[in-house]
């Protein structure tokens, strides 16, 4: 009976997808720069879109659903971002040297001190989240998918719809920008304890 089949399919999908609900929300929150409502909307839409893909046979049974779900979430984020503003804001995000979508509030002078390993290990979650939020969205997405969520380059590239080489270069730029931001803040903390 069609209704029973549909209910079984929804139940099967629920078992597969809802265990990754937290992963989706966490990634969405970081993509959306901490906006919890927008992140929840995004995760909610992703779970519905994913079900449609699942129903249409676009999920390979037995494969890891997590990268697949994150890919759907990221696609929705990019589409939504396009609607709100241009994804790369008219800038060549791959050659940005400063500023960007949400650059530092003031131009930071080259710090006289730089973060060492101990400093990075001592960075508070709130500071790291704030630094992530300051990255331009294309760079932030690479860090969220690879560094935080642990996707492979190929999985992140598929999620973002870009070549692996683009993930490689944007990830490096994002990491360098994060180092600069954290070093600058560490310097200001030492000046103003």
């Amino acid at each position, binding site marked *: 009976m069609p209704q029973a089949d549909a209910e079984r399919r929804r139940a099967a999908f629920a078992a597969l997808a809802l265990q990754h609900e937290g992963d989706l929300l966490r990634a969405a929150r970081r993509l959306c720069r901490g906006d919890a409502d927008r992140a929840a909307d995004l*995760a909610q839409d992703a779970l519905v879109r994913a079900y449609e893909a699942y*129903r249409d046979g676009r999920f390979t049974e037995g494969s890891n659903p997590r990268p697949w779900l994150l890919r759907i979430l990221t696609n929705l984020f990019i589409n939504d971002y396009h609607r709100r503003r241009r994804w790369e804001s008219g800038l060549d995000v791959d050659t940005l040297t400063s500023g960007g979508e949400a650059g530092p509030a003031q131009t930071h002078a080259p710090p*006289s001190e730089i973060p060492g*390993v101990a400093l990075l290990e001592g960075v508070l979650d709130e500071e*790291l989240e704030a630094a992530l939020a300051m990255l331009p969205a294309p760079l932030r997405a690479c860090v969220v998918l690879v560094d935080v969520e642990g996707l492979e380059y190929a999985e992140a590239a598929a999620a973002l719809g870009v070549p692996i080489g683009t993930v*490689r270069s944007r990830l*490096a730029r994002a990491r360098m920008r*994060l*180092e600069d931001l954290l070093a600058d803040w560490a310097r200001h903390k030492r000046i103003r304890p």
Partner: protein
Amino acid sequence: MFKQDPDDLKPCPHMETWVSAWLDGALTGLMRWYTEWHVAHCPRCTDAVPVLRALRARLRRLSETPGGEALTPERRAAVVSGWERADQASGGAAPSES
């Protein structure tokens, strides 16, 4: 001990992408060989590697912090309704009564 030049603990600019990818195990063949050779022979990149490793590890720890992330019951119900509507729109079964 901190160095005056803020770029001293970052890789050589022309090697940033390759050192970053190398730490991820994402390089193969000639680029992997060259990057390993360069890091082994370049004091600046040698010093940059542990800092970059620490940043990656710190970012990874963000995913391990229990965040208690969950959709509200209302949002979960909306998700399930979305699934039912998707089935209906595709000509599948009508939503089940709840």
